[in-house]
């Protein structure tokens, strides 16, 4: 692709329009130099989907198409900029619902073509991590980030904000997925994270000693063995005619997951001499996980960061923050970029 202007470097001001449409929020933002958010417009469809008990992809896609132009207009107006001021355009290209992703991504591709500016494809998970840099611009590096949700479990190392190295990932289930499966098996409902956490409140975490996966020197995770152990335990107890104490069981399972997550995290923190720790993703909302890690980081005199609530939900500002660092690396996408609903970090 031929660009009209030369690509800027980090000493110059860089203005990026970012779009996000991976689930049920249509969002656009204008970011100056990554973390300075000039506008952050989010139009939520949550109410439309409520009566169905979950996001309906076709309804979400229809709504994204309807909202994309007004949301972009508002982001430009609130930031006080015109299309012609933009240095680049970014969009989430995965993971998420393909129909929604395609609306935001196609809009971004068209803007890139029309204005002859770089197109930047951003990973939604990276967006949630970079949300922390918007809220805490002076976060100290190097840092280790544990990002955990129903779809992924990754441990990342940041020497600077310009890029990360994946130290470890789950070899089977994501941690959030394990919570969901065990919650369903125990009849506690969906989503599993909050359901297990609630049931565990009155339980004894040392009641059942479930195994913690030992993957040697790697920083990888595994939760399928734990999942099987919990299911076997329940089946065995039922066969013996014993009543299962759900609170104890939930607490013991939760303790095993938290142990696996925090032991890898703390080992990485020591190995890389990290100054800060960042927790991100849905599972990072688990209070026991936060408490456990918080205790260990305070002992080491390190700083722990959680995503702020207003940047926890989907938004475009976090996509624009990632896009800025990709711009500096000239990590530009071709116009042939398509949505990847199962994109990994």
């Amino acid at each position, binding site marked *: *692709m031929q660009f009209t202007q030369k690509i800027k470097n980090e000493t110059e001001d860089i203005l990026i329009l970012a779009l996000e449409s991976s689930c049920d929020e249509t969002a656009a933002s204008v970011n100056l130099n990554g973390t300075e958010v000039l506008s952050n417009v989010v139009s939520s*469809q949550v109410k*439309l989907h409520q*009566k*169905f008990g979950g996001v*309906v992809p*076709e*309804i979400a*896609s*229809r*709504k994204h*198409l*309807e909202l*994309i*132009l*007004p949301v*972009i*207009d508002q982001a430009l107006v609130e930031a006080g900029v015109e*299309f012609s001021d933009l240095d680049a355009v970014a969009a989430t290209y995965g993971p998420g619902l*393909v*129909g929604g992703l*395609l*609306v935001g*991504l*196609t*809009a971004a*591709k*068209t*803007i890139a*073509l*029309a*204005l002859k500016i770089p197109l930047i494809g951003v990973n939604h998970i990276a967006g949630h991590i970079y949300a922390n840099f918007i809220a805490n611009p002076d976060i100290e590096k190097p840092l280790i980030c544990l990002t955990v949700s129903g779809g992924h479990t990754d441990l990342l190392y940041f020497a600077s904000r310009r890029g990360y190295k994946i130290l470890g990932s789950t070899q089977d289930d994501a941690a959030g997925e394990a919570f969901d499966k065990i919650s369903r098996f125990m009849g506690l409902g969906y989503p599993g994270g909050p359901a297990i956490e609630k049931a565990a409140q009155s339980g004894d975490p040392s009641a059942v000693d479930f195994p913690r996966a030992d993957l040697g020197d790697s920083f990888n995770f595994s939760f399928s063995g734990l999942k099987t152990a919990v299911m076997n335990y329940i089946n065995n107890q039922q066969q013996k005619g014993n009543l299962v104490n759900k609170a104890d069981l939930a607490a013991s399972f939760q303790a095993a997951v938290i142990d696996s997550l925090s032991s890898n995290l703390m080992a990485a923190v020591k190995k890389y001499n990290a100054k800060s720790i960042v927790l991100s993703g849905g599972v990072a909302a688990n209070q026991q996980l936060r408490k456990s890690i918080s205790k260990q980081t305070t002992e080491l005199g390190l700083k722990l960061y959680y995503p702020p609530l207003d940047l926890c939900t989907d938004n475009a500002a976090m996509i624009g923050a990632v896009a800025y660092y990709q711009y500096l690396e000239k990590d530009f996408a*071709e*116009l*042939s*970029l*398509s*949505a990847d609903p199962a994109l990994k970090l």
Partner: protein
Amino acid sequence: MLTLAIDTATEVLGLALLNQQQLVIEHNLHLPRQHSEKLLPLIESMFELTEFEVADLSGIGVTVGPGSFTGLRIGITTVKLLARIFKIPVKGVSSLELLAAAVEGEYLLPLFDARRKRVYTALYQRQLGKVAERQQAISASNNLIFNSRKAIIKPAGIEITKLPEILADYRQFKLTLLGEPKIAVKEVLTAAGFRVEFANLENDFPRAAVLARLAAQYLAMDQSDDIYQLKPAYLKQPQAEINWQQKYGKKTDLAGGN
């Protein structure tokens, strides 16, 4: 007057550029499930191959279906942004009208398979103007027949067996079928006493150049669409909405339903 046409309604990705009456470039590419990857690079390459810039565009035509919702949304999103950035008018054209626009015959019945023995269809009647107008409209450069037509039955999803009833007023005329599934539709109509012919196979597919001409004509008559309202002609509510209404029986404000 430089008109861009974009058709992403079907498995054929259609793109054309029309300068005044001159067709500059046209693609009709059978590329199932590749519209997202191919549309923008192809638009870029069309401008690279020709002497025009995207900023030279003065109007855009886009198909609004019936067709693949995902495909339509890719095309319509592209058109919305191009129109917004370059402040140019847009015309959304029915995929049924696009099919009908390229063939001879006075009563035209374009068809789209809606599955489960249903079709999306409309009945178009050619509007016969003065001979001179017609001759002017037949472009010598590319043999495209261009003339105006009116939807005397508006686009809708219909069970094939109900077609004789819906078309009852037109039993005395010869109907020209195009699109698919024309054999199944012909059987039902001939059994009910209709006179039916098939369109010439060479013209029986959506062509981007025809879309460009249609759009240019509509835009010349100031019949443009509001880009903020532009959306696919869904002709069907989302399945989740249909299921919900069957279960709870209540009418509800719809998420973009049509």
